[in-house]
């Protein structure tokens, strides 16, 4: 690599990208255990399970605490801890732990990856949902109560519809982070798109590494755009989305999740 600065460099890049294109064109890479469809399915299915589980755990408590306007400290702490927890480390710690509990009927590394992904997805979901419900204008909730709505109705008919775009933003942020990070499952034996990167590193095969990275990056972008589209559809206020960048991100602010 070191002496690559010579006139032929442009040709080298084109050759390399040609090899990557060749990898994608090879039918052998699209069938069987190590084929793209199979690994993509494993990658997306574990991501979906993790996001769904994290939503079930975090959204009800976040919505309740937002409704009663308590637990701000918990929300801030959760984000800080979530940001500081390295997913690679959680996978590494959970791997021997889950093996010891003999959760081996599932594919190797499945539970370790799943637990790490749930931990990754919870903080952004919790904080966005909490903020969304808490920041509904108190004048509106008071008016709703004045009209005779019960607490459950205030949540269901006022706070949830108004908070939905921000709640969805939390789910999108979490999902993109999970889709990016599930890649690490390959290092504990759970086949994902990261398997190409893992095997590529082990064999020093830069084409395979690059192809795996490209697949992961494309999946992350597709998830971001797809859930962003859903998010805009949920905005019933018709005021458009709040302009991004209008104010600085604070430690306690709505969260954009981190993604290795």
């Amino acid at each position, binding site marked *: 690599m070191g002496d690559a600065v010579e006139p032929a460099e442009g040709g080298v890049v084109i050759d390399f990208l040609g090899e990557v294109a060749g990898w994608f064109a090879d039918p052998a890479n699209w069938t069987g255990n190590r084929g793209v469809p199979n690994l993509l399915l494993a990658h997306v299915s574990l991501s979906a399970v993790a996001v769904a589980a994290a939503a079930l755990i975090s959204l009800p408590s976040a919505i309740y605490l937002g409704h009663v306007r308590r637990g701000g400290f918990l929300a801030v702490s959760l984000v800080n801890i979530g940001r500081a927890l*390295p997913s690679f*480390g959680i996978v590494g710690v959970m791997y021997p732990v889950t093996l010891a509990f003999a959760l081996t009927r599932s594919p190797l590394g499945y539970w370790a990856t799943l637990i790490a992904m749930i931990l990754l997805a919870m903080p952004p979901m919790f904080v966005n949902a909490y903020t969304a419900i808490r920041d509904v204008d108190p004048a509106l909730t008071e008016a709703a109560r004045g009209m005779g709505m019960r607490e459950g109705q205030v949540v269901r008919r006022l706070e949830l519809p108004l908070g939905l775009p921000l709640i969805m933003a939390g789910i999108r942020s979490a999902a993109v982070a999970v889709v990016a990070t599930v890649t690490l499952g390959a290092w504990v034996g759970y086949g994902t798109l990261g398997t190409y990167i893992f095997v590529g590193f082990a064999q020093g095969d*830069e084409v395979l590494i690059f192809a795996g990275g490209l697949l992961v990056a494309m999946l992350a972008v597709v998830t971001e755009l797809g859930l962003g589209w859903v998010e805009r559809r949920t905005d019933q206020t018709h005021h458009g989305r709040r302009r991004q960048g209008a104010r600085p991100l604070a430690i306690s602010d709505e969260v954009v999740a981190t993604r290795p």
Partner: protein
Amino acid sequence: MTIDWGWIADHVDDMWSTTVEHLILTVIAVTVGLVLSLVLAIVALRWRRSYAPITWVTGVLYTIPSLALFTFLVPVFGLSLLTAEVALVSYTLLILIRNIVAGVNGVPAHVIEASRGMGMTDRRIFLGVQLPLALPAIIAGVRIAAVTTIGLVTLTVLVGQGGYGVFILRGIRRQFLTEALVGTVLSVLMAVAVDVVLIVVEQWATPWSRRRAAS
């Protein structure tokens, strides 16, 4: 399944050296990221129309997983420090630029009018008034960037760098809980410590906000 305290006692030297490596990787990324972000933020503030494309490009960089960025950079720079740092830096840009721009824009117009009335040039207003008043927002961004980067540095072991990722990767390979746990816990501890240091820096750098809080 228990923690091997003997192993920990035997590897204090390793912990020290990986801590230094981890910190250096982090400091380089955040420093370079901050310098680049300041330049880009100044461009965005001076030519307003450039803000949207700048946040778009840095947003795309933010969306691409850093593991994927590693894989794109390995064919170019190999398993090197440069590969690790380019990916880490690109991840900090969006966070930092947004906070710098929002912080500077958040300075009240009457403050800038008063500065101008005192005869300050635009350049002096920016450096002497807007930037200092934006410091809390900027440091908030640096805190997010730093804590995030410390977590991501655990991955740079995959492109041949040191740091706590060395413990984690070896722990995985040997299914050895203690080693993976040590790497993880040390990474969290460093994130907390750096965050606390930055909070202290903020209080030291913005004495006026402390005075206001006291009064």
